[in-house]
């Protein structure tokens, strides 16, 4: 699986599927392999200025006085500005959505005006010719502060003794309760009740390319072009337009090469808005690239949760009910425009996801703290929901002395039970839990591993095997954001154009950050039209060029953008054959396109090459019937409508060795069996899963944003914040089951986040499986050596 089986320039095959299902290497990585890509920081503009932000050193403080006199004298400085100055060019925002009932947040400005609410919040902007000069000047900004008490602990925040935003009354951004009813009865009926409290450490994306934006305002046109490392150019176009006072059609957002995103770069950042405002104010291009230290302080964090979970089980192993209490800490503001209530909301939606029970009660609070802001980061909420569920399931299996795989088998929703409505209200179209479970157990040779585990234990080696079954949200409909009032597009469009030389250009609103969007769209387009892959060029990430779309998020690229490309491709194919039938004077129904030529549909005989047809249609339409017009540019759109989200399912396994003397965990191997519907490029899908798994490993073993009691970030650099590196990572075996969605012709579901969703739970279960004979267990991520040693009673 995942090997490039065909040479790069494989012509479209004769089968219906064309390139769909083939592991074609990505055409657009050539420039990246030579260091000839086009990241924001690579761009050069005349009179380009750089902005550096003077950031609050305090977690919570009133800004008494800012003095810019010395800073303004520093060499190369163009200007120094406070929040009030920038507010004249950029209006504030409030990150709430209508469908998250009761969610509240105070207004947030591009640069804080009266009060800094987290360490790292920008309170002034220094613009200079070079970054170094701007930093020199920023060191000369004088600030007087009135320090305010910082709320750092989530329980303390919930208690509300100190309220961060007095106008709001308490520190609760959002709360939600869900009750199917019958939960207490289910617990009363249970033979066994298992419960646990899990902690998840706050962590962050650490994209290798820092956040980057270059705003280029043209005062003559009152127009703004923004080169932005963003996942959602159209969303940003709308936001820049509304908050900067520029007509939508005069704002162009261009996302070219982006150095990793994983959700980090899909949000609105005040310093990026300020950069645009400064370009307008100064009437010249202004660039901001977050350096690594400010990335840690200001890129969104995520996943700080304390969750209590209870599960009711019968002696047969049947799960009767789940009861959940989730508390999560965000920063002092909900993040715009998607809100910081979604992650907790997903934990409520998804806990218990793979299983058949129907009774469920959940309580969830999202509270403000004076730490960095948090928002959606790859797999949003899933890693927590999966770890909770799979952790408590393992606990129940242990209590009943049942094999964890068999316990799951007893409870997974049957493969023929669909469509299925889950107790949290979400609806599943069709999943394949049992198929994936069986495939996984076979792939990893589960029986043999269990036997080896027993043998190794006799030698004093502590191996652990952990499973994590999961469901995953993909291809969202407007139910995710649109219904709440967010101007975030759930539809997408693709334009396909036949060029005179027979090449095909694809323009699509979905964007590329390395997952393979451009390759996948090229494969679909080539297959739908009937051309070979090297004839296709894909353009994404430019609001001035592509159809209006949602960009990349919630694993929607292939399923939604890909469907639009497929529909447009088929329509273009049809229009090409319209021209061909006129040129050849043959019935359209007798024709097809294959191998860059119009062919006889039965005999495959080449009738006319596309480059010839292109020449005629563009340059010699005088040779075509007078009432006929060739339409060789076609646009189609697609919106998933039947299901709020297209759920996928998968299951992962982790094999570890725990050293009980040192608490160190060695990752021996990892498996993932995933059902993402139609797989367009198996290699790219596997690589998305692998990258996602390693991100999940980071959460499980290494990554945590550590804050002191005064709200100071203690480890905001690459030496102290630990990300997964190659020497400690296992090989990851991937396999697939394909249950296409019937909502589209392509049948593709999403897969980008699956690896991250399941890996932490699988690793936690593997560690606890290894520790079980030593009567120890861990519940707080990341599982550092110290936490494991503490569990073992060694420290």
């Amino acid at each position: 699986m995942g090997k490039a089986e065909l040479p790069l320039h494989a012509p479209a095959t004769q089968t219906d599927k064309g390139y769909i299902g083939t592991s074609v290497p990505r055409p657009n990585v050539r420039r990246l392999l030579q260091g000839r890509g086009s990241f924001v920081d690579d761009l050069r503009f005349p009179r380009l200025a750089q902005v550096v932000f003077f950031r609050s050193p305090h977690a919570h403080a009133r800004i008494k006085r800012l003095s810019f006199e010395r800073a303004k004298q520093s060499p190369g400085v163009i200007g120094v500005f406070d929040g009030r100055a920038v507010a004249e060019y950029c209006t504030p925002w409030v990150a709430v959505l209508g469908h998250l009932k009761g969610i509240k947040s105070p207004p947030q400005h591009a640069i804080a005006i009266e009060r800094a609410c987290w360490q790292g919040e920008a309170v002034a902007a220094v613009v200079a010719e070079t970054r170094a000069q701007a930093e020199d000047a920023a060191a000369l900004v004088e600030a007087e502060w009135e320090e305010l008490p910082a709320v750092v602990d989530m329980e303390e925040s919930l208690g509300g003794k100190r309220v961060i935003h007095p106008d709001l009354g308490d520190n609760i951004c959002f709360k939600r309760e869900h009750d199917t009813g019958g939960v207490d009865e289910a617990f009363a009926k249970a033979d066994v009740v298992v419960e646990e409290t899990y902690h998840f450490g706050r962590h962050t994306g650490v994209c290798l390319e820092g956040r980057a934006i270059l705003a280029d305002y043209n005062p003559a046109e009152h127009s703004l072009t923004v080169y932005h490392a963003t996942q959602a150019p159209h969303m940003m176009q709308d936001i820049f337009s509304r908050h900067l006072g520029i007509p939508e059609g005069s704002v162009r957002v261009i996302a070219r090469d982006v150095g990793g995103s994983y959700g980090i770069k899909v949000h609105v950042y005040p310093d990026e808005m300020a950069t645009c405002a400064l370009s307008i104010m100064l009437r010249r291009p202004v660039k901001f690239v977050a350096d690594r230290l400010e990335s840690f302080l200001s890129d969104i964090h995520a996943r700080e949760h304390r969750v209590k979970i209870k599960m009711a089980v019968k002696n047969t192993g049947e799960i009767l009910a789940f009861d959940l209490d989730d508390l999560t800490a965000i920063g002092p503001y909900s993040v715009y425009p998607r809100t910081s209530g979604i992650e907790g909301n997903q934990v409520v939606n998804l806990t218990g996801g793979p299983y058949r029970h129907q009774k469920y009660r959940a309580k969830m609070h999202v509270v403000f703290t004076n730490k960095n802001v948090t928002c959606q980061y790859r797999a949003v909420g899933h890693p927590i929901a999966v770890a909770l569920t799979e952790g408590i399931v393992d606990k129940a299996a242990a209590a009943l002395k049942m094999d964890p795989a068999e316990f799951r088998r007893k409870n997974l929703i049957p493969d023929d039970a669909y469509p299925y409505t889950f107790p949290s209200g979400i609806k599943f179209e069709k999943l394949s839990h049992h198929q994936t479970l069986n495939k996984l157990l076979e792939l990893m040779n589960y029986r043999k591993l269990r036997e080896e585990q027993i043998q190794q234990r006799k030698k004093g080696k502590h191996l652990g095997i952990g499973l994590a079954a999961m469901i995953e949200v993909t291809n969202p409909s407007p139910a995710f954001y649109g219904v709440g009032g967010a101007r975030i597009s759930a539809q997408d469009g693709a334009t396909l154009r036949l060029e005179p030389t027979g090449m095909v250009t694809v323009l699509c609103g979905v964007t590329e950050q390395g997952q393979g969007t451009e390759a996948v769209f090229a494969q679909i387009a080539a297959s739908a039209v009937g051309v070979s892959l090297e004839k296709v060029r894909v353009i994404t990430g430019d609001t001035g060029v592509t159809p209006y779309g949602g960009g990349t998020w919630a694993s929607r690229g292939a399923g939604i953008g890909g469907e639009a490309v497929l529909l447009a491709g088929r329509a273009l194919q049809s229009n090409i054959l319209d021209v061909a039938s006129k040129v050849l004077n043959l019935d359209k129904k007798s024709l097809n396109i294959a191998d860059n030529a119009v062919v006889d549909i039965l005999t495959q005989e080449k009738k006319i090459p596309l480059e010839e047809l292109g020449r005629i249609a563009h340059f010699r339409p005088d040779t075509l019937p007078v009432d006929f017009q060739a339409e060789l540019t076609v646009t189609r759109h697609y919106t998933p409508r039947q299901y709020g989200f297209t759920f996928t399912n998968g299951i992962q396994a982790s094999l570890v060795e725990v050293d009980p003397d040192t608490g160190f965990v060695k990752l021996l191997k990892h498996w993932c069996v995933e059902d993402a519907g139609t797989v367009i490029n198996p290699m790219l899908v596997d690589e998305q899963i692998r990258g996602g798994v390693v991100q999940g490993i980071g959460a499980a073993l290494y990554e945590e944003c550590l804050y002191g009691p005064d709200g100071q970030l203690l480890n905001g650099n690459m030496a102290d914040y630990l990300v997964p590196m190659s020497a400690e990572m296992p090989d990851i075996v991937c396999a697939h089951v394909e249950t296409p969605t019937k909502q589209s012709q392509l049948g593709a579901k999403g897969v980008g986040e699956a690896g991250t969703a399941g890996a932490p739970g699988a690793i936690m279960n593997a560690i606890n499986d290894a520790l079980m004979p030593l009567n120890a267990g861990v519940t707080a991520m990341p599982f550092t050596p110290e936490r494991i040693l503490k569990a073992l009673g060694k420290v």
Partner: protein
Amino acid sequence: MEHAVDIALTVNGTAVRQRVEPREHLIDFLRERLGLTGSHIGCEHGVCGACTVRVDGKIVRGCLMLAVQANGSRIETVEGLSDSGELKELQKRFHEKNALQCGFCTPGMLLCAQALLGRKEKPTREEIRSHISGNYCRCTGYQAIVDAIEEAVNGQG
């Protein structure tokens, strides 16, 4: 420019003379003064490896070297080594194995990996993982990169 120093060096085979500030690190020199934007900045404290370039035949972290220290040296970046064809084998394997996604770590990763090719003792898979253990990649999870390097090292296809 205060404290400016004149330096003379070779970059990708071309003689270069520039007046620099001592505080400029080699990567900023390459990117800003010479327009060679293929080498990337990921952390500026020497941990992520995105800035790996070659100085006098040895891989170094460009952010941990001052341009003034490169006076008299021979610098090679991903652009030069692509044009000379030296990286061709690795680039081919990286492409086939999808050993890059966003591409931001790739120049540094290629420069680092290239140091393994041509060794008499072929590194094991574990040694490959160890050799690139200072190059951060967030997208791939490393396996495809290790696969690609392993194939390049063993000359398989």
